[in-house]
């Protein structure tokens, strides 16, 4: 392990949120800390994980949802202190790692096939 990997491994170990098993195709609830003035609250963003850019400490998740008929995508740095929790709601069977094809599909065509029980 080189020094840079070591530094990143330490930062992963030091981060508050423990790693959850998230995969492309999962419907997740991302708990995001939001600061309003001096108050802090948690906002939940629920959607499908369409892309995971792996990189240890630098991992990001792209979560897509359709809100009021408009597609919304947010990219979350997995190590961000603002992401307090990631919950997997349902897992779907997908055959590729990047689900960008979902962007061009709407309604019934944009459904994914669920897989059995999720272990949490």
């Amino acid at each position, binding site marked *: 392990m080189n020094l*840079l990997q070591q530094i990143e491994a330490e930062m992963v170990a030091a981060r508050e949120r423990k790693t959850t098993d998230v995969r492309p195709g999962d419907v997740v609830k991302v708990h995001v800390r939001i600061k309003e003035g001096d108050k802090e609250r948690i906002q939940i963003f629920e959607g499908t994980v369409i892309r995971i850019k792996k990189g240890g400490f630098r991992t990001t998740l792209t979560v897509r949802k359709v809100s009021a008929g408009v597609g919304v995508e947010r990219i979350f740095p997995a190590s*961000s202190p*603002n992401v307090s929790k990631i919950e997997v709601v349902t897992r779907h069977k997908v055959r590729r790692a990047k689900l960008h094809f979902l962007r061009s599909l709407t309604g019934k065509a944009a459904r994914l096939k669920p897989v059995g029980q999720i272990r949490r």
Partner: protein
Amino acid sequence: MNSKIGLIGRKIGMTQLFDENAEVIPVTVIQLGPCPVLRVKTAGSRDGYDALQLGFGDKKANRTNRPDMGQFKKAGLENALKVVREFRVDAETAAKTEQGTVLTVGDVFAAGDRIDVVGTSKGRGYAGVMKRHHHAGFERSHGVHEFFRHGGSIGTRLTPGMTLKGMKMPGQMGNARVTVQNMVVAKIDTERNLAFIRGGVPGPNGGVVTVRKTVKKA
């Protein structure tokens, strides 16, 4: 001229940090020091100017010639050092620094400091104008042939009858000394002599860089 103190280091690579607003800061990790002071030059002495000679990195003794080894011994070192560089400093710094003291990141820098970083950029070899000067090249079609990545005209006719100096042409790209001014130290790890510097630093991972307080005004 920069007459502020600095250190020699090695670029480790890039990663990310999060600031207090949980925003990503891209950082370059540099192993800075420990740098033993090999010699102190002062304006009052035979040297005629104020400077510190610093060393960095280990080198095998059997790879070092005797005159160099003698210089290291004189500074009280047992091993040889790979890189030796001189930093012009002000008279005050030169006066209070002693030969043989070992400078570390914590002695010189703190988080939030503004710094200049000097490195040797990655060599791109003999590069054409498109890569070297971002020229646009020529069209791929419409009758253009054997001329896709050329530079175009390099001058006019009888007036002035020559190619002007400094015309952008192909040539060696990279592998040159590059300074990036006014960078910010994001974090310091005194235990492992690491500095986390906001942004990119010239040169490949593992390249030698010198870091000193910036010449820019605050």
